[in-house]
């Protein structure tokens, strides 16, 4: 006698197992291509890095310092900051860096996309990188990113994004999330299915902007839009898993919530805009990755709703029980433990197998992400918390989409 709950949970575990094993197998098949090979006599090309900044007086200095520290020939690197009409002391901070060779532009506020496009218009090199003003880069990252442009159809190379400075529960949660994304992104690159070119330090070939246009100013997630545009035109997006970029992450609950709603709503909007990609012609991306993303979201949200509902029902039964015995706590003292009551059935075993695969993936991600900290028990709390948060973010994002509510940039580009 199988219930609806059990069917949903079994489907979720099955899909999770399938995707996990598929990804692990893909990674194993390409294990000699994981580390980025720097070509020996490869002439490093000229790159411009654009930093769009809006109200980033506290973080932009660290960003620019990390760029100035890049292990890259100074005559081939141009650094450009575009101040998008900041209302704080950002411009004053930038003036200091102008003396160190950074080009500073300022313009009226128009959104992150418009700031990057302003920079692209004034860029003279064949390669353009974008770096968010709250992120900083590892000194080897640019060399590694650039060496993956070896084929002409590679239009963008993505880095591995991580949370630097992990303090507090929410940042811990994001750091595990970002680590797993490092794993996923590298695997997706082997499947030709990267669908986000992250703001922090993706390097683009300028030729693509000339032929297919600059960043879309209408969308709230221009990084997803650009990636899907590149995929849609049949080009390749690569990933340099050992090019590390660090971002501060968000430490407060509501700003994080708002950021994720923006990401997810943007994802929905852009996949709908590029829905022609969900087609046999686009191979892994169209047939597997994009549909699987939506199915995964649906199942995750369903499992959370069902679990919370059952928990509520159980709590109600317990409350009823206590009510009828007049809340006499002394009855708890006579409780005898019976090993018979340990419910070890198929669901538990399958859940444990799923958990084992998740932990394997986290371990591998740590290896890829060069993360020094050891695995802790707290990771289990993060897994459970993440599942709950993820569902909440998606439910709200879908509601926003359904009610067509507008999402705008906040007081910073978060």
């Amino acid at each position: 006698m199988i219930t609806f709950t059990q069917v949903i949970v079994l489907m979720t575990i099955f899909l999770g197992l399938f995707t996990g094993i598929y990804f692990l197998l893909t990674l194993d098949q390409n294990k000699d291509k994981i580390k980025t090979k720097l070509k020996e006599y490869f002439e490093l090309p000229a790159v411009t890095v654009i930093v769009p900044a809006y109200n980033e007086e506290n973080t932009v200095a660290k960003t620019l310092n990390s760029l100035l520290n890049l292990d890259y020939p100074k005559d081939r690197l141009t650094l450009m900051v575009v101040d998008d009409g900041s209302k704080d002391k950002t411009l004053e901070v930038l003036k200091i860096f102008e003396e160190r060779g950074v080009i500073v532009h300022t313009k009226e506020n128009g959104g992150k996309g418009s700031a990057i496009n302003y920079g692209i218009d004034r860029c003279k090199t064949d390669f353009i990188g974008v770096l968010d003003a709250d992120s900083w880069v590892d000194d080897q990252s640019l060399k590694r990113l650039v060496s993956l442009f070896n084929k002409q159809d590679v239009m963008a190379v993505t880095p591995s994004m991580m949370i630097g400075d992990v303090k507090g529960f929410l940042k811990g949660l994001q750091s595990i999330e970002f680590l797993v994304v490092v794993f996923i992104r590298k695997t997706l690159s082997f499947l030709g299915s990267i669908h986000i070119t992250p703001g922090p330090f993706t390097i683009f070939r300028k030729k693509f902007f000339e032929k297919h246009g600059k960043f879309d100013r209408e969308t709230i997630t221009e990084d997803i839009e650009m990636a899907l545009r590149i995929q849609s035109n049949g080009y390749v997006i690569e990933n340099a898993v050992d090019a590390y970029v660090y971002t501060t992450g968000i430490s407060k609950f509501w700003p994080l919530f708002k950021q994720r709603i923006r990401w997810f709503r943007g994802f929905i909007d852009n996949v709908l805009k590029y829905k022609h990609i969900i087609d046999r012609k686009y191979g892994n991306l169209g047939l597997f990755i994009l549909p699987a993303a939506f199915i995964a979201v649906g199942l995750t949200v369903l499992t959370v709703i069902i679990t919370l509902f059952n928990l509520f029902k159980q709590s109600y039964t317990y409350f009823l029980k206590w009510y009828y015995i007049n809340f006499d706590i002394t009855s708890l003292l006579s409780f005898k433990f019976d090993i018979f009551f340990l419910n070890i059935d198929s669901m538990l075993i399958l859940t444990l197998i799923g958990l084992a695969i998740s932990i394997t993936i986290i371990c591998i991600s740590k290896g890829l992400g060069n993360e020094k900290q050891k695995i802790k028990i707290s990771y289990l709390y993060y897994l459970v918390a993440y599942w709950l948060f993820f569902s909440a973010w998606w439910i709200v994002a879908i509601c926003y989409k359904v009610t067509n509510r507008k999402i705008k940039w906040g007081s910073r580009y978060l």
Partner: protein
Amino acid sequence: MNRRRFSKTKFFSVLSITFLIFLCGILLGNYLSDLKLDSLVSLENDVRISIMSAELQYSIFSQDPCSNTGYSELNEEVYKLGRRLEFLETKYGTDDSNVLSLKEYYSLLEIRHWLLMNKMRDECDQKKTIILYFYSNLECDKCIEQGFILDYLNRKYSDIHIYSFDSDIDNTALNAIKKSYDVKIVPTLIIEGERFEKLQTVEEIEKIINVSLS
């Protein structure tokens, strides 16, 4: 472009591996669950032997039957059996055929234990309160609540014996008891031979017990 190419072989091999792992997990889980059912069957056998021994012990020591004190262990076993059966009932559902047959057997064991307790109480002048409880899983308002209350009282007082009978089980011995106490609806409590219909709260039952013990 060729990285994006969808590999049917990979897809189907991963699908098969996942399916195999899934199947193993389900089979292992089912095997472990069945072990529990088996353990309960063997526990019922043990309880049957214990009851028979107690009854025979009682008959053998007919001159001085009350001095024997092996009964608390027996009571514990019966209680444990009842708890585990309840657990299986919530896990497999109230209409699972295995659970139902275990329950019927358990009801008969309960009746034997009850008869023994009755005899002992009368002849050994022990201060015990015996409660029979008739419930139904199909149609009953407040049976679950009455169950909570009785469970609580069972643990609070050591000289209460509560026997729960599923009124829907069609068994001649059980039907005979129902007829003799004129049990018509559920929940019904027979406390010291007196019939109480509908939900009885903790205070009400405690009052009745104190009256009968005094």
